[in-house]
């Protein structure tokens, strides 16, 4: 959305002085965009080497943007957009300045850097302070690049560790949730089963109670009449309850 707005603004107002417009969609080959050639070749070479080194050794993407003049959308906005579009990793910085005499600034971004944003911003403040102390403008930019590269490069491993920890914690949380779901399912099954058993028990008890609740009758049988007893054949039950002598 911002890119569209920028484009429209540029179309509407044009770029003063006929200077090149930063193509935020495609990064410069050596990571340096300096259309007005503010940087000497030596400095450009050194900075390009540092950028390449950080990329190779730490997968830290560093870009340098030298605006000929303040863009319509603002140098910081454009620098951030450039970084977000150019970077392929989650850890990037764009060192930018406006004009040959401008003070270098830095925009950072990426999911890894977000883990350590306060520390990263401290690095940038320190880098700017160091850059202020240096004499020439080219040296200032060079100093800024070095300080940012060193500081943020150092922070990267911490950021990666934090990311791993976050990943581990996320995994632990996922596993805990999965375990909780499994446990809940087991409880559900067990209690459902027990509930069914209890229900079955109640049904059986109810049936027993129903069959036993009212008057009971014995089945009628053909009597075994014997010993000329019309109603009873007598029994063989006799128990004494007297004191045993």
């Amino acid at each position, binding site marked *: 959305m911002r890119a569209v707005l920028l484009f429209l603004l540029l179309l509407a107002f044009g770029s003063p002085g006929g200077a090149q417009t930063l193509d935020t969609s495609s990064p410069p080959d050596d990571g340096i965009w300096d259309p007005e050639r503010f940087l000497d070749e030596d400095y450009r070479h050194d900075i390009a080497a540092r950028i390449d080194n950080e990329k190779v050794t730490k997968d830290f993407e560093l870009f340098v943007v030298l605006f000929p003049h303040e863009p319509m959308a603002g140098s910081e906005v454009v620098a951030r957009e450039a970084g977000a579009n150019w970077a392929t990793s989650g850890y990037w910085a764009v060192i930018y300045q406006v004009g040959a005499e401008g003070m270098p600034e830095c925009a950072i971004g990426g999911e890894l850097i977000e883990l350590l944003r306060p520390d990263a911003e401290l690095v940038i403040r320190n880098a700017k302070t160091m850059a202020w102390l240096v004499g020439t403008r080219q040296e200032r930019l060079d100093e800024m690049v070095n300080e940012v590269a060193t500081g943020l490069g150092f922070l990267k491993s911490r950021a990666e560790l934090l990311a791993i920890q976050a990943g581990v914690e996320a995994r632990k949380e996922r596993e805990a949730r999965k375990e909780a779901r499994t446990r809940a399912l087991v409880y559900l099954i067990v209690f459902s089963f027990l509930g069914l058993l209890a229900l079955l028990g109640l049904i059986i008890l109810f049936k027993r109670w129903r069959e036993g609740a009212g008057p009971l009758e014995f*089945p*009628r049988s*053909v009597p*075994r009449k014997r010993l000329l007893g019309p109603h*009873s054949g007598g029994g063989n039950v006799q128990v004494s*309850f007297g004191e045993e002598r």
Partner: protein
Amino acid sequence: MYLAKALAKGPTACPSCGFILDDEPTACPRCGFSGEVAVRKFRFDPPELTAIIDAGQTLSADEKARLEKSLKRLGKRLPQVRFILCLVPLVPEIDLREFGFWLLNAGAMPEGDEAKSFGILFLVDSKSKRLSVTVGYGLEPMVRDSEWEEICRSLRPHFLRERYAEGMEEFVEETGKLLIERALEYKREIAKGDRR
């Protein structure tokens, strides 16, 4: 209608000598005991077979009332069954089983003789200290003699202390439990069709 033999829990025996009777003889093949012999032996009019017979006037009115209440309560669950609780002093020479055989066959029941089929005559001889049980043909297959004996033995402490009412009440209670259980068993078995 079922054959009594098919329902029977145990064998039948001569009330005089205890000989096991396999079929239905008119007299015991071993001792010759029969109804004729019993009538000759007990040459007097039998009493009416009411629920409580207290020949020696031993029980109090309250005790009789309590017994009647227990019988009435059980009667709701087992309407076929008729208890005859008989407390009588007899000499040792009289065999209680022969006496029971004679009394249940010869005595008249207020409800008519049909009621004797599921009658239970519980004899308590207060003089010779004996207990016996005689039942009608209808109830006979439902309970073994050994089960009646077990109930009687459990009541001895009451009768030993001459607590006749308590003993009789407990007899009614224990018999009631056994008969209810038995009736439910038969109900289930008949429902399954096992005894046809």
